[in-house]
């Protein structure tokens, strides 16, 4: 889980992705929430022209409205008395999976929307798999279009069981399964009187009860973004990925292992207080000057430094990732050319079934990939430190796949 970093006087942030199969009602659910919550002060009223077609709240492109389908991901904000909710709508269509990921990689939690009349479909499964891979393990399931099932309890319980089982197989324990009619507002914000057999929370109530796993307090990781030289001593700039850094700290530059000491913390206006997790700051160091891509860490607790990184990779580009191919691996502020050495344990993301051994990873396939890097890379396992445990694979500067260090 990414750390929820908020500055002084800012409310905590909870970013929720709406995921699931095409046309199961993700945009409609967000639009309906926006509509019902727009009585909140400081929230713009929903345009009257979208009444009844709640998906138009986020589907603002001409082609999205004409085709009645979300094409691109959208973020919409809702300030509640206790936190800021960011709803991330994503397209459900298979060919738009890159837009789904542009949204979902920014989420802390998810609502998996499942249409009652269709049940679990290809994209339901694929999106659930991606949530598990992205480390989003806080998931509410909304069983939508309950009207097509006569709002009946037995039909709901069967779908509830399927959803719970499928998510559990991916390592996700659901934070509630809710029968919903998004269009009419049943169990969206207010509890539905038309489904008296259900006594659980509405979607918004369930969101309000979510408790996010807090990232464990960890040793300092400071990926170097660049070096400023325009005045005085060279200043190393970057964002504190984890831990904190104070003047006088003795640190190690990874890779390489050079020892440095923090002579000064720099900000504008001048302020020398220690920098905390999430903060963008400048450091003046005594010792050899690090460069962009290096990671600063305390001598006693260093990240992995390796020439042979490996991870679970999900491939996006039309042209498969082939054995022996060279791509660029981007991790934190590092970009390192890597060659594909081995591909194993391939999986079809539509069925979650294993694939026979092969020498390439095609779009929508998942596999364990071992690389040989041109120079040493600094990584961590994703569970220990998400920011150094995830990477993007680029071809000609375009993200073609991504991976998680296991």
């Amino acid at each position, binding site marked *: 889980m990414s750390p929820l970093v908020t500055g002084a006087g800012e409310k905590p942030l909870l970013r929720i992705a709406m995921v699931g199969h095409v046309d199961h009602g993700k945009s409609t659910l967000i639009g309906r929430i926006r509509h019902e919550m727009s009585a909140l002060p400081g929230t713009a009223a929903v345009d009257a022209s979208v009444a009844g077609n709640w998906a138009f709240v986020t589907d*603002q492109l001409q082609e999205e409205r004409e085709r009645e389908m979300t094409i691109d991901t959208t973020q919409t904000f809702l300030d509640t008395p206790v936190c800021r909710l960011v709803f991330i709508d994503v397209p459900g269509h298979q060919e738009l999976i890159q837009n789904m990921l542009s949204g979902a990689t920014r989420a802390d939690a998810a609502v998996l929307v499942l249409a009652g009349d269709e049940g679990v479909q290809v994209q339901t499964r694929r999106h659930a798999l991606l949530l598990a891979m992205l480390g989003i393990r806080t998931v509410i399931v909304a069983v939508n279009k309950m009207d097509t099932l006569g709002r009946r309890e037995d039909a709901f319980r069967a779908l509830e069981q399927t959803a719970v089982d499928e998510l559990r197989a991916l390592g996700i324990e659901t934070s509630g399964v809710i029968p919903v009619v998004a269009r009419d507002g049943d169990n969206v914000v207010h509890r539905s009187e038309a489904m008296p057999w259900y006594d659980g929370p509405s979607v918004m109530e369930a969101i309000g009860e979510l408790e996010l796993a807090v990232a464990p307090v960890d040793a300092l990781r400071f990926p170097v*973004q660049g070096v400023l030289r325009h005045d005085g001593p060279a200043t190393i700039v970057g964002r504190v990925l984890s831990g904190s850094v104070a003047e006088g700290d003795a640190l190690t530059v990874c890779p390489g292992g050079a020892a440095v000491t923090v002579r000064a913390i720099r900000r504008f206006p001048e302020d020398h207080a220690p920098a905390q997790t999430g903060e963008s700051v400048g450091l003046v160091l005594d010792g050899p000057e690090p460069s962009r891509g290096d990671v600063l860490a305390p001598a006693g607790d260093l990240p992995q430094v390796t020439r042979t990184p490996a991870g679970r990779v999900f491939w996006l580009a039309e042209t498969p990732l082939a054995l022996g191919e060279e791509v660029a691996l981007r991790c934190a502020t590092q970009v390192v050319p890597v060659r594909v050495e081995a591909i194993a344990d391939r999986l079809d993301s539509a069925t979650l079934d294993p694939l026979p051994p092969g020498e390439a990873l095609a779009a929508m396939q998942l596999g364990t990939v071992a690389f040989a890097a041109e120079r040493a890379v600094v990584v961590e396992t994703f569970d220990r430190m998400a920011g150094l445990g995830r990477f993007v694979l680029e071809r000609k500067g375009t993200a073609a796949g991504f991976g998680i260090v296991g």
Partner: protein
Amino acid sequence: MESESIYVIREAYSRYAKVAMLWSMGKDSTSLLWLVRKAFLGKVPIPVIHIDTSYKFPEIYTFRDRLAKEWDLDLRIARNEEALADGMGPKKIDKFACCNALKTVALKQAIAGMGFEALLLGIRRDEHGVRAKERYFSPRAQDFSWNVGAQPPELWDLYATVDEAAHDRIHPLLHMTELDIWRYVRREGIPVNPLYLAKDGKRFRSIGCAPCCAPIPSTATTVDEIIAELEVSREPERAGRAQDKENAFTMQKLRSLGYM
């Protein structure tokens, strides 16, 4: 929020040899300029471009020249002189064509003339439904076009920079709302263009060209009062902007042609 923006600004500065920012003297791009100063410890190491349609409010020009001097800015002014000589204006032709000629085309000329690879802009997701779909790093083709339906993936904060893009638009304020900006202005003491403060019961909530912006009824004469007003308002931010009203998808069309 500030650290996220500074991270994006520094990422852009580290990656491109020639990067500039657009400054309209409004609250958003002035906050962006302030963030650039913070990112580079008090200096603005990149050129600051003002797309001057010549139809801006006089207060905008005064504000621009004052800060340019105080903050030691490398200010570049971009005007579509040919179109202006030809009498281009919102009264001559429709607003879509005017915005396109005096803003988008002027920007194209500036980028071509100065050879920038990347531009920082102060747009935010919550100000318009189409801007809600933007990325932090957004590539533009040679003809400036933005294909909103086929944007490259942007995963986490691992921003990719597409090789064949003609230039990239960088949006460090994407995650901030209108209220966030005003609270940030208050917290940081960022200078405010006087047009935002109420005079005779009216103030501007969004500023651009004088003929196409209408003030809203307001009694807010300080930043504190603006924040208090917005905390209970349910009116959308750009309600006073003529451009958005002309046609349902004007903003989308303008942006697909390279508008900001």
